[in-house]
């Protein structure tokens, strides 16, 4: 296999590893070891299917879409109900915000995020933290772009309300 391909793919893994891992982690409800296994599988599937990636689309969205399939397949294989309801992923990550004011606001944001409908939460995180376009979010979550737009707007309305305190 061309080693140039492999080098390019190495850069992809480094660039998107955290995002894909976090995406998977939310879907396996915080099982970190399983998340790593599945994130690995997602990247390998992406590698095998790299010819099907369309340059004009978002790499991260494409990877997340593959990861969602990997998680679903794994859940099916294990006979579990597929984790269609992603969990928040920050429950075991220490918040290092130094500023008490932003700490409190961050706290309120986390609470409000946890209370959001899971799909809206996922849209919000993919947009705000992973920088995915609406099309990429739609691809990752398997829903229409219009749903992403309205879901994000509803999520934000609730979050703004909550953060105001």
């Amino acid at each position, binding site marked *: 296999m061309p*080693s140039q391909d492999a080098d390019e793919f*190495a850069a992809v893994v480094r660039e998107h590893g*955290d995002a894909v891992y976090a995406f998977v982690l939310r879907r396996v409800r*915080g099982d970190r*070891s399983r998340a*790593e296994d599945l994130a690995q599988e997602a990247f*390998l599937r992406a590698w095998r299917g790299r010819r099907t990636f369309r340059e004009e689309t978002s790499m991260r969205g494409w990877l997340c879409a593959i990861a969602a399939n990997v998680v679903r397949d794994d859940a099916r294989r294990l006979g579990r109900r597929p984790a269609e309801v992603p969990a928040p992923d*920050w429950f075991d990550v220490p918040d290092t915000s130094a500023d008490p004011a932003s700490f409190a606001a961050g706290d309120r*944001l986390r609470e409000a995020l946890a209370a959001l409908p899971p799909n809206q939460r996922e849209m919000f995180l993919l947009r705000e933290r992973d920088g995915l376009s609406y099309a990429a979010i739609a691809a990752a979550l398997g829903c229409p772009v219009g749903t992403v737009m309205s879901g994000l707007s509803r999520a934000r309305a609730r979050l*703004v309300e909550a953060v105001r305190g």
Partner: protein
Amino acid sequence: MTHDDARLLLSAVADGEAERTAALDEHLASCAGCATYATDLAGLSALAAALPRPAAPPSLAPRVLARVRGARRRRWALRLAPALAVATAVAVVATTLTGAPGLPLPPAAAAEPLLRLRSLYVERTIDAPGAVTEEKVWWRAPASVRVERTTVYGDGTTDSTLLVQTPEFRYEYGELTEHLAPAILQPEPVSPTVALLGRDTGPGPDVAGVPTRAYELVVDGERRLAYVFDGLTLGGVDALVLTKSGESGTPTKTTRVLRVNPDLPDVLFAPPEAGPGEDGGFRPRDLGDLRIAPARRPEGFRVVRSGAGREGEAYLLASGSLPVLVRAGGLRRTDGREQRTVTHAGAAYPVAVDLYAPPSVQVATPAGPVTVSAPLPLESLAALAVGMYAAEYRAPSGVSGRTRPRRLP
């Protein structure tokens, strides 16, 4: 334009997914609420950017890239990983328990710490004469902890993974050498899974000129034959040949070399200091109301940890001369896994046999079903579980034959 329309559009504009329109500007000029909302959105965005995000484990990228670069050579190894797990997953105490009061347990592993490692295998997959393409290191520990490290040679790419797996928790650590300290190695003559679950069918064929014994093993409905060298010893080269009759009817076959490597430093052989309390999503939790504390405990048995697992289940992790894991709730149903029952003192109990963990048995208590796992033969496991919960135990009625486990009242 309604407020809702304005806010929908503001959200999309903030994301660069829509253009600002004159209608929106008009609305904002006349609606203080929506104008404030536009500012709030920017603040929200900044807050969201500061949300902590878990980083991928450092091992993820090397693992992916090792597979990408070694994909062709490693095909066999990947396919056979589960078979290897069979040989390593179930821990070691095979002595039959008596169900007598006091529950004496075999002395073999007495007073061993829960995570003390017992033995080490280095497995090499060789697909061309003289070329080592993969090396896996497996530890075996009394808690059926599994530690794996894979190294890929050939193109200079290495893939270092350390995985500690207990029946219910899996922990990931970083570099192999960082967390491990001295422990005792004990050579084991036969894979404990083979010893526990396999049927010795007599001499097997010679492998590489060395005689073997054949064991028949049925796992997940698949029949496997394991040919094991007699007298696996530290420092020796030993072979395990597995043949598996697959669904297609075409037997697949491989030969692998197990080498117990004497050259690894002692520092590699102790458990990580961070235990389940700090890792693997295990959260300490008071079990007082969960009623899974046993009425009687096996001799020397103490509670090592109790808490809630990643799905909120209650656990009691105990170690005496062997590890016992108690979980509130019944057996879990998983596809493709054979569900059986075992008979003890005239009553039948549902059991589950798992490739990657010791067997589990379900007993009933007034507070509900409890699942007990320990590396024991099924009959001994049932005796242990019934012994632990004897005071509370009510014999299930109508459980016989291959009845599926049910939720007990």
